[in-house]
């Protein structure tokens, strides 16, 4: 489910109907040797685009879900009354009403046609009426989502309403062997015929061709081709010639135009809308304006008109607030509140299933063909739409206290339930994501913040630290990644069609990328995958496609399935931030440096594990490349990636190191207990990882890591120009070390071989000053509470130490604590070291080599959080921070 700009619910209801996709022939493989995609998944993929079709004359599609045995359930906007009410009651509609309805239906059809779709199933009960009597077309997407009926067994459309050319083209069945070429699908004009029949029924006050057998009915429609005046013939046939003759001329003309036998003579919905028969009606309607999307070059508030008195806006206190929420939001909450589609449909006896033991086949051949299984009646189509009961949702107390949400310009909502809310915040994420009330409030909050994006960018960041409601995740991530501007135009201007050499690799990778997911395994998903990946490859000529880019694309595509441009924009913003130059043609220097820093991070946080892994030779190169190259998207399923990235996107580019260490720590016991071979086996198919714990622990690790410890010379260079406009003010955690202004006290680049030689990370003098609170001037960047505890260990000789040292540092000359075989010797100095276990230990010396050696020794005896001062004591000489101990009195 993705958050789009859907209309508010208003007086609409949510309706669900169900049908079966046709079963695949047993044991047939696709041309690529992989198993065929089930038809239900194809339909599910094609359905997605329907969610973006928002028009006042169309029932908004909300969701589709797959049930057992290829069942599909579609959720859409629904109204109880429809044109078939007229038919049932046998009353005629007034000519004006007929014209209005025709006009409204045509508006809907025109909009569909503009999006390349045809209704094909127009009938009385698919033309719904809202409480104002306006037309809403239902089931308009069935023909599209089933690939023009190819993926279902039942024919689309209703016998009496089928246009003659549709009948002539035959009832096409994919399983029918006599047909080898599928006929061209129906065009927009078939709907005009169906509309004609519908309007005729409205005028005549009776249904057409009801009491005769289907094949006779269809034959009758086909014979109309030889008639001069189809309307008169129909009227005579149904004994309502008088009623029809009395109709005003423009209505009669409309009927004649619709019921034109030859398609070439029949107008399209667009033609008809502009026809003079509607002269008196068209002025009542204003053309539909598509709302401006969040990312566009035009001004979103261009058409906003505020009332004189701004308080007018907040006056509608008595309104039903549920009806003001978007339809997809209401459905999302309905699901959270325990809504169960299958149950609703079963209760109304739309889903009737036989016990499986009664439907077993008796005999199965070696190739899987089965015999003796009677046709199960419960698989027949019953496309009745069931209204979903929202009363459970309306009971959620928060809906009535919604007025307590002030306009966004003041701070956060301060409703009296905020105490309760803050209690919910402390619950595990999984529980919060299922809490209806909590989600409602979070969705409203994010909805308002995102609508004010980028102006409210800082608040989005602030709230994202609490959590991100799954419904708005796509846009929230885009906001966190700082996407702005007319992304659609940019995406469209990229050539995604011309073949490029990478195509073959992409083609191989896509059918292997997160295919357990219905959306991503659908043919539509594959098409979108291909386009987004190609767009990225084409628009980044300096970078190349490495296997893994597909996995990286997956979460963005999943979240923005209907907005490829946004998926592309997010991916393009994500990669330079977290994977700078990872996709170079020769990326070995980047990756090698990255992995070396990662090893240092393991040693820094978990020396025991680090010692063990180094001992058995299980180095990060063997397992961590897919982790980092895909930012863990290759190893985790999507739902875990979402939770991981919710936090990842808030951190800077060194946060992934902490995630890596956190994963290792979760597998710590097994790694420690095993040798090389077992570890390789263990990681070849990574065991289940508790992702919430992983996130929690990586945040903790991150807080303990001095910023400069993860310095990489191949990281993204600092941006030259600062963020302009509404740019967020960078916080300590989210900004990169590289982004901060470089001074003499910053870290120096280090050759890879030197970096590899050191077990422990270096930190900059800057960090040391900050962590030891040595600086006299300027505010500290972090509050005291958030800082890791630190101890500076000066390993120079006592003589050097006394000539000047950092205040608060302890002097443990190199030779005093370690025996020749690397063991700690018992002395007062080791006592100090032992007491500082758990703190960040900064080793300071003249020469980096001896500092590194000392640190390595400490790691060897399992001291954690050991690091070295980059540049040694000399770096600090210029700062004037060194002190000389006053002689003891």
């Amino acid at each position, binding site marked *: 489910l993705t958050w789009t700009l859907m209309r508010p619910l208003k007086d609409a209801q949510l309706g669900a109907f169900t049908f079966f996709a046709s079963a695949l022939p047993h044991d047939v493989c696709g041309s690529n040797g992989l198993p065929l995609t089930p038809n239900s998944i194809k339909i599910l993929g094609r359905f997605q685009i329907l969610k973006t079709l928002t028009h006042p004359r169309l029932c908004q599609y909300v969701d589709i879900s797959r049930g057992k045995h290829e069942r599909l359930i579609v959720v859409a906007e629904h109204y109880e009354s429809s044109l078939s009410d007229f038919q049932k009651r046998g009353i005629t509609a007034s000519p004006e009403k007929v014209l209005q309805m025709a006009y409204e239906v045509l508006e809907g059809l025109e909009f569909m046609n503009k999006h390349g779709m045809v209704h094909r199933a127009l009938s009385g009960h698919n033309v719904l009426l809202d409480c104002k009597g306006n037309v809403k077309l239902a089931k308009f997407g069935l023909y599209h989502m089933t690939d023009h009926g190819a993926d279902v067994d039942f024919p689309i459309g209703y016998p009496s309403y089928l246009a003659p050319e549709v009948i002539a083209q035959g009832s096409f069945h994919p399983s029918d062997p006599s047909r080898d070429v599928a006929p061209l699908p129906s065009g927009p*004009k078939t709907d005009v015929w169906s509309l004609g029949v519908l309007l005729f029924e409205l005028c005549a006050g009776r249904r057409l061709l009801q009491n005769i057998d289907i094949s006779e009915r269809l034959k009758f429609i086909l014979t109309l081709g030889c008639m001069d005046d189809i309307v008169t013939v129909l009227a005579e046939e149904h004994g309502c010639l008088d009623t029809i003759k009395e109709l005003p001329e423009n209505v009669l003309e409309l009927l004649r135009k619709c019921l034109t036998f030859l398609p070439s003579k029949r107008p399209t919905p667009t033609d008809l809308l502009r026809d003079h028969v509607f002269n008196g009606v068209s002025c009542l309607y204003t053309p539909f304006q598509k709302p401006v999307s969040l990312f566009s070059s035009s001004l979103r508030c261009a058409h906003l008109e505020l009332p004189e008195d701004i308080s007018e806006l907040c006056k509608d206190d008595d309104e039903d607030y549920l009806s003001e929420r978007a339809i997809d939001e209401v459905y999302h909450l309905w699901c959270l509140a325990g809504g169960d589609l299958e149950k609703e449909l079963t209760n109304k006896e739309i889903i009737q299933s036989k016990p499986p033991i009664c439907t077993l*086949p008796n005999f199965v051949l070696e190739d899987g063909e089965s015999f*003796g299984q009677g046709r199960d009646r419960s698989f027949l189509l019953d496309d009745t739409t069931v209204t979903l009961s929202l009363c459970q949702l309306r009971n959620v107390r928060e809906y009535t206290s919604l007025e307590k949400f002030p306009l966004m310009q003041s701070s956060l909502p301060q409703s009296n339930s905020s105490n309760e809310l803050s209690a919910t915040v402390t619950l595990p994420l999984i529980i919060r994501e299922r809490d209806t009330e909590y989600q409602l409030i979070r969705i409203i909050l994010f909805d308002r913040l995102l609508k004010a994006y980028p102006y409210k960018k800082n608040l989005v960041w602030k709230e994202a630290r609490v959590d991100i409601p799954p419904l708005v995740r796509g846009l929230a991530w885009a906001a966190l990644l700082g996407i702005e501007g007319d992304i659609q135009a940019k995406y469209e201007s990229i050539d995604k069609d011309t073949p490029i050499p990478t195509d073959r690799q992409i083609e191989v990778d896509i059918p292997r990328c997160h295919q357990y997911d219905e959306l991503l395994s659908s043919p539509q998903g594959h098409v979108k995958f291909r386009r987004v990946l190609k767009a990225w490859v084409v628009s980044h000529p300096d970078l190349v496609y490495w296997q893994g880019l597909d996995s990286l694309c997956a979460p963005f595509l999943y979240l923005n399935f209907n907005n490829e441009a946004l998926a592309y924009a997010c991916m393009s913003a994500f990669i330079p931030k977290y994977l700078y130059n990872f996709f170079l043609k020769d990326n070995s220097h980047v990756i090698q440096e990255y992995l070396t820093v990662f090893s240092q991070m393991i040693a820094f946080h978990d020396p025991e594990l680090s010692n063990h892994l180094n001992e058995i030779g299980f180095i990060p190169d063997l397992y961590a490349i897919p982790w980092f190259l895909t930012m863990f998207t290759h190893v985790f399923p999507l739902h875990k990636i979402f939770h991981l990235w919710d936090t990842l996107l808030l951190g800077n580019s060194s946060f992934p190191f902490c995630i890596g260490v956190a994963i290792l720590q979760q597998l710590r016991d097994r790694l420690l207990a095993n040798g090389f071979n077992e570890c390789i086996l263990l990681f070849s198919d990574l065991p289940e990882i508790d992702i919430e714990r992983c996130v929690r622990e990586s945040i903790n690790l991150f807080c303990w890591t001095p910023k400069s410890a993860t310095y990489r010379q191949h990281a993204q260079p600092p941006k030259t120009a600062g963020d302009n406009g509404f740019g967020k003010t960078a916080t300590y955690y989210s900004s990169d070390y590289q982004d901060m202004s470089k001074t003499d006290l910053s870290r120096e680049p280090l050759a890879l071989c030197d970096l590899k030689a050191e077990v422990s990370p270096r930190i900059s003098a800057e960090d040391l000053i900050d962590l030891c609170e040595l600086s006299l001037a300027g505010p500290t960047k972090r509050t005291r509470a958030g800082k890791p505890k630190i101890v500076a260990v000066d390993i120079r000789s006592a003589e050097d130490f006394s000539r000047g040292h950092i205040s608060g540092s302890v002097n443990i000359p190199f030779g005093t604590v370690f025996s020749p075989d690397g063991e700690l010797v018992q002395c007062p100095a080791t006592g100090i070291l032992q007491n500082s276990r758990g703190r960040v230990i900064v080793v300071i010396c003249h020469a980096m080599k001896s500092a590194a050696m000392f640190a390595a020794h400490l790691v060897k005896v399992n001291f954690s959080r050991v690091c070295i001062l980059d540049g040694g004591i000399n770096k600090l000489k210029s700062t004037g921070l060194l002190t000389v101990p006053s002689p003891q009195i």
Partner: protein
Amino acid sequence: MKKNKGKANSTAEKEFVFEFRAGKHNCVLKVPLQFPVQENISDLHGRLMLLHKIPCYIESELKSSLLNFVEKETILDYDREAELALQRLTAGDVDVNQLTSAWSRSYVETTLEHARPEEPSWDEDFADVYHELIHSPASDTLLNLEHNYFVSISELISERDMEIKKLQERQAAEMDKVMHELGNTLSDQDVNAVAAQHFDAQQVLENKWASELKQVTGIQKQEYQEWVIKLHQDLQKSNNSSKINEEIKVQPSQLSELADSGTRIYEEQPQLEESFTIHLGAQLKTMHNLRLVRADVLDFCKHRRHGSSGAKLRRLQTALSLYSSSLCGLVLLVDNRVNSYSGIKRDFATVAKECTDFHFPCLEGQLEEVQQLVLYARAQRSSKQKDQPEIPRNGGEDKSKNVERNPSNILPGEFYISRHSNLSEVHVVFHLCVDDNVRSGNITARDPAIMGLRNILKVCCTHDITTVTVPLLLVHDMSEEMTIPWCLKRAELVFKCVKGFMMEMASWDGGISRTVQFLVPKSISEEMFYQLSNMLPQIFRVSSTLTLTSKH
């Protein structure tokens, strides 16, 4: 632009022409387009702008004229295609009656609105009633009643066995006497005559008992079903449940003593059993249960003593899930004839007869139905093959010869299914046909028996059979050629194939958790069993044991 060869009928190339002024120049853009247009027009537009370096002030004009062009031409295509179809009809290329009856058929066959009304099915009604009752307080009574019937059948059976035994003893004595006299007063012919007479006598007796059993079973089934329906009606009629409860409670007391008297049946034998929880899948993992069991295959079918621990619970469990969507299945390896005359088939039939099946036709009835279907399937296949002779089926030649020999036999890899309500832990039995090939050491993943397993798992998937028991070594009894290496090799093959099939199943049903029991014959050694149980976690990823560690 790619040239699309062939299918000239449905795709056509049309040229889009666009003229514009750039400064003093008149420019003409010509683009050949394939119809129907598959690609996104916005993308096409973007590409044209890029490729031909079209000035940006033309951008929107170009887009709208491109859209109009495509729209117009597409409509023309639709019209042409539609009118062609109408013409075919008027020209008589297509038969109107055939066309409309095809339409009519597709409506009747697929939509509820037009489908023929359903004949009421007694079986399904009974299924509903039973399912409701077994999930009510009446379940205890139902089970007791079933057990009651079971006891009377087993009494009958033991009586039969006794009588047959007596007859055999008498005949043996008589035969002894005759043999004694052989050569003296009696000739070979006389002996043969006596033997034939004995055989006839046995046949008569067995037939007598068979028909009696059949009759009793029939009566029981009818009584039972009537009783169930009546109980259901009573329960529905009166909300006064106390009365019903009394009615229900009467029976257990009288049953319990009966239950005590029915103490024959089988001694419970210690099984070797080990369970594993596994994860399948690369990213999204699904959890399943595996069990390695050393037992006789019929142990899953036989009822144990009523009073013994867990036996009643197991029966209740089986009864509760009979019409549910978590069924239990068992794979039985059989030869190529659909009957129950010999070997494991005979043993199974004996077990299946020990207790009346109150829900499904008796085994013989089901097998008869299967036999008919086999003949039907063969006939259909051969007619299909005649239609499409050019498609060679892999290895089809020697197979078709086989079939020609006797079309009523089934082939290795094929299986038939029987349904039971009267077995202790199983609802569905897959009778998988295997040949002597499975005894050899070198079968591969492409062996028919393995493909049969895959199809069985597929049926499990489509029909909610969530627990299935598979003979791991693809044999029910051990023999001499089945050495330790043979066993290990076979077990590895089956483990790996089943793992592959289970991963495949996850994509069919979304990874519903299931239980697969691997069965090994009783005669393998304990040592062998543990060797196999060590092999399992190396092939499947066993989920980590939950370790509780204190937080620092």
